[in-house]
């Protein structure tokens, strides 16, 4: 699938949700974005922070449905967490691809789009990322005695923006105090290990 097909597919999925300016902006998707001097420290502008926050909230929104009342990514501090993690735990390749992703969001004027258009952009990103991750031959492996490990073929280019922001949103949310307590049955000290039957609609345990 080439990029044009991806756009078409996503547009179809959404029933033509893209506005003309969005589609035009996406046509410039692959134009090189501003390059960052090597060794530059990672920092976000206010606009970029807002974009990160809006995307995180779209990934894990606050929900108030009767059967699911739970905070959203913004409520539990995910946006600041993402910025801290990008700064502390990633090297330049990832930081660059994260910035590149944000630049693209600025190009398509993400913050000015309506909800549906924003989701369309994310769907597009998701499809694009899938193809790229496939090329990286990601594998889950088990290492050592009891340790899960993710094996991703090393390439010079950093992991794609969508993959980074999605992983960090999930990590930040599902390990936050409010996120854990709203989503799972949190048990700090289980005291035993045993096989049990899953009850209908039972939430996962978190430890």
């Amino acid at each position, binding site marked *: 699938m080439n990029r044009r097909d991806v756009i078409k597919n996503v547009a179809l999925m959404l029933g033509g949700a893209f506005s003309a300016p969005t589609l035009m902006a996406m046509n410039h998707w692959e134009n090189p974005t501003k390059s960052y001097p090597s060794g530059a420290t990672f920092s976000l502008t206010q606009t970029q922070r807002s974009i990160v926050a809006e995307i995180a909230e779209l990934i*894990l929104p606050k929900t108030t449905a009767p059967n699911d009342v739970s905070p959203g990514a913004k409520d539990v501090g995910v946006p600041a967490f993402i910025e801290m993690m990008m700064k502390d735990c990633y*090297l330049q390749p990832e930081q660059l691809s994260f910035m590149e992703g944000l630049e693209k969001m600025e190009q398509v004027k993400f913050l000015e789009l309506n909800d549906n258009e924003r989701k369309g952009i994310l769907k597009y990103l998701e499809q694009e990322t899938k193809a790229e991750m496939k090329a990286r031959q990601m*594998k889950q492996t088990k290492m050592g005695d009891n340790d899960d490990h993710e094996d991703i073929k090393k390439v010079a280019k950093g992991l794609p923006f969508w993959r980074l922001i999605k992983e960090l949103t999930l990590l930040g949310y599902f390990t936050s105090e409010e996120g854990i307590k709203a989503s799972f049955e949190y048990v700090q000290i289980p005291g035993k290990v045993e096989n049990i039957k899953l009850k209908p609609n039972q939430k996962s345990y978190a430890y």
Partner: protein
Amino acid sequence: MYLNIKATKNNTFDAIVVGSGMTGGFAAKELTEKGLNVLMIERGREIKHPQDYDTAMKQPWEVEHRGKVTAHSAEELWANKRFGNLANDESGPFFTNDKDNPYIEKRPFDWIRAYHTGGKSMHWGRQSYRFNKEDFEANAKEGIGIDWPIRYDDLAPWYTYVEKFVGVSGQKEGLDVLPDGHFLPAMPLFAPEVHFKKMMLEKFNRPVTVGRVANLSQPQEWHTKLGRASCQYRNKCVRGCPYGAYYSSLSGAIPAANLTKRLSMLHDTIVAEILYDEQKQRATGVRVINQKTNQVEEYFAKIIFLNAGAMNTAALMLNSKSNRFQNGLGNDSDQVGRNIMDHHLGVGATATVEGFLDEYVYGQRPNALYIPRFRNWGNDKQSYLRGFGYQGGASREGWSRGVNADGFGSDFKQSLTKPGQWTIGFGGFGEVLPNPENRMYLDPTRKDKWGVPMIVFDAAFGENEIAMRKDIMNSAMEMMDAAGFKNIAGYNRPEVHLGLGIHEMGTARMGRDAKTSVLNAFNQVHSVKNVFVTDGAAMTSSSCVNPSITYMALTARAADYAVKALKKREL
């Protein structure tokens, strides 16, 4: 540079133990309990059990980077980082800073170190399996390396002795390939694992068992006496256990030695050299350097146990030069530093499991399933020698499955609050053959910041290991297929080197002949009778099972011999 030699008398003990880790702790316990005054010398900082496990009780949201390794930590712990997430906020502070303690890689060697009270016993995976009869005989039968000077039956009672003290949870299976031990109640296998076990027996006649692990599933009176309590199944052992529920030098051996009131301990004290008396033909003591103040001092004892971890023990011997031993203490055979072995890992397969969707687990099992060696065993014959065991297990996917799955939004969010499908994965631990060309030595010019020569590693996997790795991956895939699992994916990580198994061993091997080995059948240096080496350096072959319980059994046996010899005035 002998700056400060106090009166010999003040610095004199019955025994000196170098290193406070898995084997040093055990040596100190045995020697003090048998009546000796012991000085245990540890190069790293002091960790007090359990109050210094400062990350142990942290809730997930209190761990700043939530399990990920920071770029800073990855740089400081550059070797440790090769293993995975050990360098993260939870356990990183307990591992050795590789930047401050560099080593040289002529060929790559993944060296994971923990310089502090308890050494790597604080972080081990606690998997504890006996060597089998064949493991002690294979070298001689196949003409590989040299013969072990002992047999399984020599060690069997000491295995029992150590297992009892340590507390090993496991299932008796009655297998020759994986001898049973003295076990506490076994932990459960999970539903898909029970299915897998049944299928493996049916289709391949291969036994599968639950891991044998040094966690107290049911503490005995001698455990509680030391303040050790029952496992709470949090599986956060790598941070240190606040309940002392898994065995470490810190939770078990050192408290036991302290009860005798005959243990003295020094921290932040690097043993740089073993002192040798040419007249008496005995070691007299050690020269140490304080890692904080650089102050040099000497300590003296009748016997010395070297338990600095296989690589550091060999380095210490190589650095102990005298007229008599120009190539390092006890190194007449030129075998000190050679025959580095380990277990090769990072190879196996993962799969998804269909069904079992009403099955779930409460609690976190700090353990895995174990598939004992089946290659070159019984009627099986391969193009390579020896074999491997697998460790791994099944679990239901959690929220992290969302990272690589399509979707976002409220339905996506809610779906991640429920357990996902079952997945299963296991990886091999393969035996490594001894090869004298796989070695470490001291760099002739480069020194660390305390003026001690740096270690150079020059070792790599051989053809036998590489051939075995292919089979480890393929056999894992074949077994998963036979069990009906789906989406089977094999892996064989190319960037794995010797060392990554963290079972490094072999650098001062035991043997029958002083010309080809360093130690005798009681871990005594052939040519310096009052020096004993009972860490992994002593190993003549590696088997494929996790080695620490064997190191401890050798230690207890050697300590028994040493004290008897001392009493008979032979030492």
